């Protein structure tokens, strides 16, 4: 790859940058990137471009007369100034608050948020002292989100990593299409929770609605209460000592540990009857791969 300085790149258009960085000339070598770890890599804990923030440097934003775009832009400005703890006052159910935060931060929202709150995040710790609308934490990559009251449907849709916690109850289709991470519900969850789940863990301390884990491909669902019904290919599995240790640690961490412990939890996994790709004829399969 050509060696180009950051100063030179800043003078270029996007088209010129892409070419200068070799992204149009390097040949793909198939499915493998053939990249190897460097065992002597420097110890770093944040992305090279992440702002240096200090959790002890705290400020507040009164969002009452601001649009969502203005609030989210202001959060980024404050992070660039080194603020590591930001409190949002008067959110008044605004949609899409706190989305796209890609580095460490303590964000506290004093009130309730609307649809698609704190989605697409990678690293921050967020506490919402209120309720949240649909799809809170959608496509979350890492970090922690704690909701003190109830949440709407599709809570944690397509989550890929991190801990998404609701102390209260949540609507239906919780963790739909989740591909990693942990969703914890202190109360009950609605129908079709874990629908098409592919990976990750869901913990429901209360009851689960009908069709739990419907069409799940992988991942684990732990339920402390009653399960109305399991969906297609969701089957019960043995709760191991490692499961119990992990559940105890996680629930204690968020103050949701039941008084009677975790031995009563039911563990649901994929029966893997839906892994039908191997039903293809061998020649068809090779053609696809």
């Amino acid at each position, binding site marked *: 790859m050509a060696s180009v300085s950051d100063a030179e*790149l800043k003078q270029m258009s*996007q088209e010129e*940058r892409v070419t200068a*960085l070799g*992204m149009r000339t390097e040949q793909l070598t198939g*499915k*493998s*990137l*053939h*990249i*190897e*770890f*460097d*065992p002597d*890599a*420097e*110890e*770093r*804990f*944040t*992305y*090279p*471009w992440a702002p240096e923030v200090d*959790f002890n440097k705290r400020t507040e934003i009164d969002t009452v007369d601001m649009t969502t775009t203005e609030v989210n832009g202001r959060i980024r400005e404050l992070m660039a100034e080194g603020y590591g703890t930001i409190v949002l006052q008067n959110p008044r159910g605004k949609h899409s608050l706190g989305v796209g935060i890609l580095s*460490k931060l*303590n964000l506290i929202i004093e009130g309730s948020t609307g649809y698609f709150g704190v989605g697409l995040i990678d690293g921050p*710790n967020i506490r919402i002292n209120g309720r949240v609308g649909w799809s809170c934490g959608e496509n979350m*990559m*890492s*970090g*922690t989100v704690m909701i003190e009251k109830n949440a709407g449907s599709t809570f944690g849709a397509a989550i*890929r*990593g*991190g*801990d998404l916690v609701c102390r209260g109850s949540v609507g239906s289709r919780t963790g739909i299409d989740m591909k*990693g*991470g*942990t969703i914890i519900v202190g109360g009950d969850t609605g129908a079709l929770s874990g629908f098409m789940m592919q*990976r*990750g*863990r869901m913990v429901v301390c209360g009851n689960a609605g009908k069709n739990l884990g419907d069409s799940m491909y*992988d*991942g*684990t669902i732990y339920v402390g209460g009653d399960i109305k019904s399991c969906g297609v290919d969701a089957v019960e*599995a*043995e709760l191991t000592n*490692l*499961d119990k*240790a992990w559940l105890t*640690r996680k629930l204690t*961490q968020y103050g949701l540990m039941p008084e009677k412990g975790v031995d009563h939890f039911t563990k649901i*996994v994929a*029966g*893997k009857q839906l*892994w039908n790709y*191997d039903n*293809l004829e*061998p020649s068809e*399969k*090779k053609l696809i791969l």
Partner: protein
Amino acid sequence: MAGTQYRGSEIVDVDQFLNDADGLVSEREKEIGQHIGYRYDVNLVPDYNRITPFLSKYMEVMGWDDLNWLEDVHMGYEEGAPAVFDRNNNGWVRIPNTIELPDNQQDRDMIARELLIKFQMSDRHPLSDLRKAYMKF
């Protein structure tokens, strides 16, 4: 592995896919010429008694009480070599053969997490150049 009703083969040994990269055991796998399913247990939760000092420090820096998203990172295999899947570049990153692998999956997973963090946070990561080329704000 939990949920073993599928037509793949059981993972019986931590070195199974190092000694036999193809891993064709069941009749169906032999027929189609490919191992069915993951080559490691994606549902394995971490054993926190085996956490490394680097990972403890990472948790502290990020303000987390546990491994957070790294709970989903495991050591897998690519073409007979130990490797870790990096979601940020959608590909496998191989473990150098200078690193000696422990004899159990939990310790291997901790090494995988440590190496992945160091790689993702370095300027070597493809995301660094992608960001330089395509960043809009």
